[in-house]
């Protein structure tokens, strides 16, 4: 065949060009170069309704997680409207799809603020998307309520962090492992911002508290080849694995983990990014007995949670689990409502000033906003995955922990930033 005359180099160049173009489109161009508009965007509150923005990935690789957050936000808005709205005005949700693409997030955030004139925006999941929209919200002085646990070491005057910061999730998780006598840790994570920062914190903690990190490995996001990493974990003599893998890699990792003969008994894995929804999709048989660290579980006791779970399942289906980020998204709308009502105005400056000390009887228990850091006092919880796919609490911090995003209260963390 004469067509076979192309060179291998030509082929490889072609393939890598295609790969490179895919990578480039993922990076995208810097959006929102309009730096002239430094004035605060005015939310439109003149009518009988007030618009609020919902900014989630409704498509793309993050949709599996972010759609549940979007659902929880819609539920909160529906409930608030049914109870009379905020300051007598009904809320109107404007949904924008971030499409799992960070530049798109920035673009859509700008559209929500400038075109829809929303009073507040709720959403984002990955740290990458949050970092992408941060300058937009700061430029227009418009508030964002962020619902997911994250790596800390960040503070923006226009972001309210409703998920856990590291001292409300990772540090208590380490305390728990230490108390169980599991002091030799193997760190496995995805290769990006959150796991790298989290592991930096874990290593500082381990050094100061007499724990040892016997190994540290990162797999590319989306990687499904864990044979070697699991072999390394197995040979390391670790007591436990601290897992900061995100997304699908968890499926491959836990499949490999089980088939190599490692179990929750012989070497427990503590994960910080696997909630009820993910447990269901990974498969309970691979996760039974493994540990997770969050602030909320579907099984968390209390009337507020029973009401939340019942309302969510009535709206979206009996088999739909609730999870920590969903709960944080749900309460973020209520917290904003309480701030606005305390301020008596939708004005951002007034809302921010009113935020300190706002409390809400949340499904996870009582939460309080810390005005200084714009984070929330939350209870830390360690849970164990059960045979039914639900997570049951095995330990909690006894009460809400004060947020400390820069870990200023910990001597061992002094070098981190």
């Amino acid at each position, binding site marked *: *065949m*004469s*067509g*076979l*005359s*192309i*060179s*291998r*180099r*030509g*082929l*490889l160049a*072609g*393939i890598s060009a*295609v*790969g490179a173009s*895919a990578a480039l489109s993922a990076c995208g161009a810097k959006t929102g170069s309009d730096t002239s508009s430094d004035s605060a965007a005015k939310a439109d509150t003149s009518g009988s309704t007030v618009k609020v923005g919902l900014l989630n990935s409704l*498509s*793309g*690789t993050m*949709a*599996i997680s972010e759609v549940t957050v979007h659902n929880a936000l819609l539920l909160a808005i529906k409930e608030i409207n049914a109870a009379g709205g905020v300051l007598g005005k009904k809320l109107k949700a404007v949904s924008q799809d971030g499409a799992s693409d960070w530049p798109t997030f920035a673009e859509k955030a700008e559209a929500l603020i400038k075109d829809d004139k929303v009073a507040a925006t709720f959403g984002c999941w990955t740290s990458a998307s949050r970092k992408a929209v941060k300058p937009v919200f700061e430029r227009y002085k418009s508030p964002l309520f962020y619902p997911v646990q994250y790596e800390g070491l960040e503070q923006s005057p226009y972001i309210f962090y409703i998920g856990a910061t590291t001292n409300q999730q990772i540090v208590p998780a380490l305390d728990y492992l230490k108390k169980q006598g599991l002091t030799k840790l193997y760190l496995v994570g995805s*290769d990006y911002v959150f796991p790298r920062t989290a592991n930096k914190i874990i290593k500082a903690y381990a050094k100061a508290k007499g724990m040892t990190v016997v190994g540290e*490995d*990162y*797999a*590319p996001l*989306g*990687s*499904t*080849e864990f*044979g*070697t*990493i699991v*072999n*390394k974990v*197995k*040979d390391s003599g670790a007591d436990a694995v601290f897992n900061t893998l995100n997304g*699908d890699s968890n*499926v*491959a990792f836990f*499949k*490999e983990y*089980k*088939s*190599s*003969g490692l179990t929750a008994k012989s070497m427990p894995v503590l994960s910080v990014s696997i909630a009820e929804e993910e447990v269901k*999709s*990974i*498969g309970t*048989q691979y996760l039974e007995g493994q540990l997770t660290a969050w602030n909320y579980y579907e099984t968390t006791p209390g009337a507020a949670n029973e009401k939340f779970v019942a309302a969510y399942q009535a709206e979206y289906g009996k088999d739909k689990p609730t999870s920590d980020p969903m709960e944080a998204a749900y309460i973020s709308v209520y917290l904003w409502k309480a701030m606005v009502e305390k301020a008596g105005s939708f004005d951002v400056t007034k809302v921010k000033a009113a935020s300190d000390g706002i409390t809400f009887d949340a499904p996870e228990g009582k939460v309080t906003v810390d005005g200084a850091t714009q984070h929330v006092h939350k209870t830390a919880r360690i849970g164990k995955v059960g045979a039914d796919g639900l997570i049951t609490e095995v330990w909690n911090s006894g009460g809400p922990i004060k947020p400390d995003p820069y870990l200023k209260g910990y001597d061992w963390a002094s070098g981190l930033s």
Partner: protein
Amino acid sequence: MTVILNQSFTGISIGAVLLLIALGLTLTFGQMGVINMAHGEFIMAGAYTTYVLQKSISSAGVSLLVALPVAFVVAGAMGALLEWLLIRRLYTRPLDTLLVTWGVSLMLQQLARDIFGAPNVQTHAPDLLTGNISPGGGITLANSRLFILGLALLCVLALTLILRLTPLGRRIRAVVQNRDLAEVSGIATGQVDRMTFFIGSGLAGVAGVGLTLVGPIGPTMGTNYIVDAFLVVVVGGIGQLKGSVITAFALGVLQSVLEYSTTVSVAKVIVLVAIVAFLQWRPQGLYTLRTRSLA
């Protein structure tokens, strides 16, 4: 020693996955010169076939065994259709097949997203395949990996037999060696092309079934493997089954040894550098096909 044995097994099992994926490409790229970027999506089709079958057949073991031939036919039919619709018009323009099939692969990914939803799905492995064999000395051989290894070797054997012993195989080899001469000898080369494509794509479907035992099933799962598969075929020597087999296992073992002593990303870089160096030394790959083609 245990470490070496366990790592060798991991390397061999990575190699088996590579081989399973590269096998179909050895036919369509190697033998026919078509750069089929949609090969990864045929893998995806095989994986989703397993998922669909498992929904209707409750026994995981039975559904997996049924999935193997069904996925072969489903992915093979998709490949034959692609060949009939587009590729047969492009046989003289191999670089264009790259662009066209890249477009097709994006469309297939979107189609999968529309049919099965954006979130990835899972199949349940049969109980037999979730455990492992421990022959002692701390060595563990995961059953799912052994299954994939067996599957890969079985496919190599079947493909070899088809190419060596059947009339179709003889015709395929004749077309590859000299299309014009084959045509004047009375071989319907168009038909042979379509059959070659059917088998090559069908093998991708079988690979997809195997991959459901390793990781999640999603619209983009094929793209994770496509570059590695092309590397295997190019390094092995285009159109050379023997070369692909050796290269797949060599790359698998190299990758796992490097991963053990460095990190995943560093290992990947070293492997790619090694491949570039190898191709400088032997641009034609490990083995070459002596053809009577004029070009």
